[in-house]
């Protein structure tokens, strides 16, 4: 790729706290893939879902401040964020501000106006489209063969399609393909875009227990060893609250929940601590250590039907 990949980067608040490992692995992976992330100077909270549940102007203004800051950066081709919630807020603001009347209302709340010149994308979209699984594959020095993953995109990475404009809104495949490029297997997971309970964990824990519980059940019944996700909130609900879910639903899941960037990082040769694996609540270490043996078994199994197939 001759063109230099240079983006404005919006880390999002959770990257400073509950999803530190996502932030850490995202930066490491982007660097390794030659994607330069330029932090938006003095970025602030996008408003997340609470803001748009209160008022769309307020929500768009909180996001808009960051859009305007990013537009001042030079030589960047897009604004990237790892977090789907931030992504939605930034994209919805940009989309709604195409209406000049609404844009005027929002700009009235801001110190300096949004010009709406840069596209907003997720880190996932940038890795998938600007680098791509084919370019990733040869870079993987450690294939994760034998790892069966339920790829979970969350409800707002791809929806609604006319705003998110990325991948299929019912059966997204970007993360599946990236995981397959690093040797892992994406199992059938029909609930790729079902909601996990979102931010109701604090106020209505029962909701998260039911919805995230169903996700874990479905992942397990489809043979997944682990869930891989692209969303801090989803990851927290599935990982940190897995014990709460087990208690409420009388289940005994012990399913690691990765960020896809952590797995790409591992495949690119990074150490577990470089991608923050120790910060996961359900430890994946035993699973990861079992991989070489599994890969071997898989290769053996693959040989038999292959030789049989050759005969017929």
């Amino acid at each position, binding site marked *: 790729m001759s063109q230099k990949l240079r983006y404005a980067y919006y880390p999002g*608040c*959770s990257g*400073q*706290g*509950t*999803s*530190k490992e996502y932030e850490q692995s995202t930066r490491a992976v982007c660097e390794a893939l030659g994607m330069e992330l330029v932090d938006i100077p*003095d*970025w*602030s*909270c996008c*408003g*997340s*879902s*609470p*803001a*748009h*549940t*209160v*008022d*769309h*102007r*307020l929500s768009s*203004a*909180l996001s808009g*401040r960051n859009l305007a800051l990013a537009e001042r950066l030079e030589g960047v081709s897009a604004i990237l964020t790892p977090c789907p919630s931030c992504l939605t807020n930034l994209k919805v603001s940009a989309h709604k501000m195409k209406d000049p009347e609404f844009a005027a*209302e929002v700009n*009235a*709340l*801001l*110190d300096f106006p949004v010009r709406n010149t840069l596209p907003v994308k997720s880190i996932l979209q940038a890795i998938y489209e600007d680098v791509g699984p084919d370019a990733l594959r040869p870079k993987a020095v450690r294939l994760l063969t034998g790892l069966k993953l339920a790829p979970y995109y969350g*409800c*707002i990475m791809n*929806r*609604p*399609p006319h705003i998110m404009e990325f991948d299929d*809104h*019912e059966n997204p495949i970007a993360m599946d393909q990236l995981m397959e490029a690093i040797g892992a297997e994406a199992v059938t997971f029909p609930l790729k*875009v*079902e*909601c996990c*309970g*979102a*931010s*109701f*964990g*604090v*106020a*209505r*824990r*029962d*909701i998260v227990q*039911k*919805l995230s519980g169903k996700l874990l059940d479905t992942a397990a019944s489809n043979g997944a060893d682990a869930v891989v996700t692209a969303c801090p909130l989803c990851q927290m609900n599935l990982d*940190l609250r897995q*014990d*709460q879910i087990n208690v409420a639903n009388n289940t005994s899941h012990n399913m690691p929940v990765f960020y896809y960037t952590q797995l790409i990082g591992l495949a690119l040769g990074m150490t577990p601590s470089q991608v923050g694996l*120790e*910060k996961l*609540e359900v430890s994946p270490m035993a699973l990861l250590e079992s991989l070489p043996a599994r890969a071997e078994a898989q290769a053996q199994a693959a040989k038999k039907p292959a030789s049989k197939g050759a005969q017929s």
Partner: protein
Amino acid sequence: MNVIALSHSQDRDFIAQVEKESGQNVSLCYQCGNCTAGCPYTFVYDIPVHQMMRLLQAGQKEALLSCRSVWLCATCQSCTTRCPNNIDVAHIVDVLRHMARREGYSTEYGVKSFVDSFLESVEKNGRAFEMGLLLRFIGKTGRFWTDVDLAPKILPKGKLSPLPHKVKNPEAIAKIFERFRQECQK
């Protein structure tokens, strides 16, 4: 179940207001129910989504603004994405929640408190401060036991900072809130 006196209780201004704020035409809904069919939150709703749409068409303001469902929608976009009439249903629910707030409803007090806590945190620090907002939420609701079981899991991992990561210039964000309040009073 109460009789809905259609001749007297249809609030047309309410319908018009929702349509204006959401940019949606509620007459497009033909009650196929696909929104409810796909909604993951139906199990906690007091009124399923398609019935909210129906009550909206009938101008039943009180029933809608006082219901739990408007607070329990997580805007997961399932309804919007699958609506055969391209109605942005999630947006309509958002608007109903805005109206419920403005008119002083807080049927799901916990949910409202969480949102308020979050935004207060943002207004003060410029960024969401998770530890701070949790404490605010507990302060508002008196639910001291909220997620105490998670504390031993999360604290050793250094994920919850005891101090906020403030922006350099938190006043800039506070000003956005301030201007917003002024606009609202106009």
